[in-house]
């Protein structure tokens, strides 16, 4: 069975972007990003259990510019996935299912997730 010759349904490049679509795509993308980011959490715990030398290596990475960018992105993905996931749980109870509600929920999710991300990093940078 040849897969390449079969007709495909319209995909990302065909549809006009909508809030529904953006939420769905970002929910999945943030989930995959968090999966990759979880490696950093495991690295931290294993390195800390392994001893001061291993932990210093992790800490050097985490506090480097690249490490900080990774952590910032991870925080953003985490809060987005958390807010969007909460919407999914609410939708499972039969709420927020109309398009206008999705548009509104989307704006709230993006604003809350961005605020929490910036708030957390602001707090840490302020108190550290």
């Amino acid at each position, binding site marked *: 069975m040849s897969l390449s010759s079969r007709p495909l349904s319209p995909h990302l490049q065909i549809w006009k972007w909508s809030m529904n679509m953006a939420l769905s795509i970002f929910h999945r993308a943030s989930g995959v990003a968090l999966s990759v980011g979880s490696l950093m959490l495991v690295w931290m715990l294993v390195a800390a*259990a392994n001893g001061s030398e291993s932990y210093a290596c992790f800490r050097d990475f985490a506090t480097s510019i690249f490490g900080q960018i990774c952590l910032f992105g991870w925080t953003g993905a985490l809060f987005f996935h958390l807010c969007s996931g909460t919407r999914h749980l609410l939708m499972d109870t039969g709420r927020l299912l109309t398009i206008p509600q999705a548009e509104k929920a989307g704006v709230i999710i993006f604003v809350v997730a961005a605020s929490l991300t910036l708030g957390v990093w602001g707090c840490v940078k302020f108190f550290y």
Partner: protein
Amino acid sequence: MAQKWEDTAFKAPMARARGLGSVHSGLHHWMHQKITALANIPLVLWGVWSAMTLAATGADLYTIRGFFAQPVNAILMVLFLGSVFYHMALGLQVVIEDYVHCEKAKPLMLIGVKLLSLVLFVAAAFSVLKLSI
């Protein structure tokens, strides 16, 4: 009682021969995704708060050990890891099922994701236990 897909007249003989169709495990998967999602909400909020307090104090090894020396933190962290990695395994499984159409790579990737999630959980959870005692 729900009628099984195999019993319906809608299924083409070829689909029956190939064994295609529902395997009746979707609800179980969906429920577990939702239950871990529910558990993740308080656990993630606790995790972020803990990470913030640790980061604000410089997150040196001495502080990390002190943090996990408290049983409540070690317990919550192991619960966090269990819920998050199970949720991750279920989520990545769906992503692979949706996008990977190569019938050789797909099962290997599905098995890989399950095993990798388990390895990550065990490595992280054991580290927490070691740090806690």
